[in-house]
């Protein structure tokens, strides 16, 4: 799958003879090396789950969060280079704040997504900068328009989704997500499914330790994006671990 772009991959301002911009493709690779992040759009809101890989036992728990608040009603989960991601978060926050100041209302998610996409895309045009090595999931809930979720990748392209995954196990996660009938499910149930999927796709062999991050925004939070409350988190994690054990048991029986 991966090809070497010898000579045509030195800057983002160059096309290859077969019409590819290699620097952008390499940026996508950076995203694929990071821990998985998934988002699911349910009937009454959005749930995000992130597999935050922990490389050392000496780290403080809860440090280096990968889920951010852009405005009261919008959340963003990221995969890729965390430092690059923080730039994007800052830009998105400024954009949302200036919209609020000018127009007196919270920024609609589609509009913010377009603005952030344009910003990310701009960095794919010049040889003096490199593209962002980040994909972002953005979600919000509005009482009139309902829940919405978009993904922006390093090329600056964005799509709206009912369910999506980014990061190292995105293929496996997508398969799991497709099994869920999310359009009719409420967030209180989706939160458990999201936790379960993160636990399923996590590779115990290659990445020893990870922290689960869960956040949601929807009717149940009054339109506010926040990390899920402690009791919801504990229940979801318990459900996820139990589901894993069940499937482990059934494997043994087959033997």
């Amino acid at each position: 799958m991966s090809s070497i772009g010898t000579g045509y991959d030195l800057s983002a301002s160059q096309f290859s003879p077969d019409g590819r911009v290699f620097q952008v493709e390499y940026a996508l690779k950076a995203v694929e090396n990071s821990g998985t992040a998934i988002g699911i759009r349910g009937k009454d809101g959005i749930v995000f789950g992130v597999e935050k890989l922990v490389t050392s036992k000496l780290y403080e728990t809860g440090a280096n969060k990968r889920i951010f608040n852009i405005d009261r009603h919008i959340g963003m989960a990221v995969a890729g280079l965390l430092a690059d991601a923080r730039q994007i978060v800052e830009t998105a926050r400024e954009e949302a704040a200036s919209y609020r100041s000018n127009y007196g209302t919270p920024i609609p998610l589609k509009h913010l997504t377009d603005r952030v996409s344009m910003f990310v895309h701009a960095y794919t045009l010049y040889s003096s900068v490199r593209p962002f090595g980040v994909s972002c999931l953005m979600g919000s809930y509005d009482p009139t328009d309902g829940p919405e979720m978009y993904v922006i990748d390093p090329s600056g392209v964005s799509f709206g989704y009912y369910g999506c995954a980014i990061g190292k196990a995105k293929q496996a996660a997508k398969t799991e997500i497709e099994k869920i009938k999310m359009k009719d499910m409420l967030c209180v149930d989706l939160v458990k499914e999201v936790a379960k999927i993160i636990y399923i796709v996590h590779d115990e062999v290659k990445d020893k330790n990870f922290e689960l991050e869960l956040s949601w925004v929807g009717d149940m939070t009054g339109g506010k994006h926040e990390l899920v409350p402690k009791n919801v988190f504990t229940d979801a994690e318990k459900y996820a671990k139990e589901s894993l054990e069940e499937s482990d048991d059934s494997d043994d029986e087959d033997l």
Partner: protein
Amino acid sequence: MINMASIMTSKYLPAVSAETTGCVGRPDWLTSELSTGTTIAAIEFDGGVVIGADSRTTSGAYIANRVTDKLTKVTDYIYCCRSGSAADTQAVADIVNYHLNFYKMERGEEPLVKTAASTFRNLCYNNRDSLSAGILVAGWDKRNGGQVYTIPLGGMWTRMPVAIGGSGSTYLYGYVDANYKPGMGKDECLKFIANAISLAINRDGSSGGVIRLACITKDGVERHVLTGDQLPKFYEDS
């Protein structure tokens, strides 16, 4: 409340009394800034808004335009009523129109009335020292229905079910307080506004001419003009 405001802005002239107007020296209408002396009013009802204004533009004592249109469109569903300096309010309304067009193109949907009002407010507040503009923003959007926002001189904004403005509005506070009731229908509102403007015209020298009315709903804008005999009549001592 606010507002002896929006009376003719002859900031840079010495005070001119009625007896000396037009006498030796320069008549005031040669040097006064053009003012939409004015009476404006707007009211919300379930399903839209009704707005109204008089049609007199004065330059001192001279009536520069007796058939002015002070109800200015900023989008297909949002209008503003202008009072204060004619130049200032026209300039601000043009800029807001530009911004909202842009907004509509980018977002692919009609701007909210609140958005329009916020845009007006930002211009009026940030340039408060240079502007003399009292504006009512009124319209319909699909999220919140009919809304009226008032933006008086300093650039504050607030939503109100019924709002009045301009130099003639001082004579209407009693009428509005006594006669407004929530839950009025479209025709009642049209009558209410027409009556209000007519009463102000009878008392305020800076207001006169015809009564312009507009009704904005989800179906668009309906405009009316009341001329001469059509103006609502009230007790007159003759």
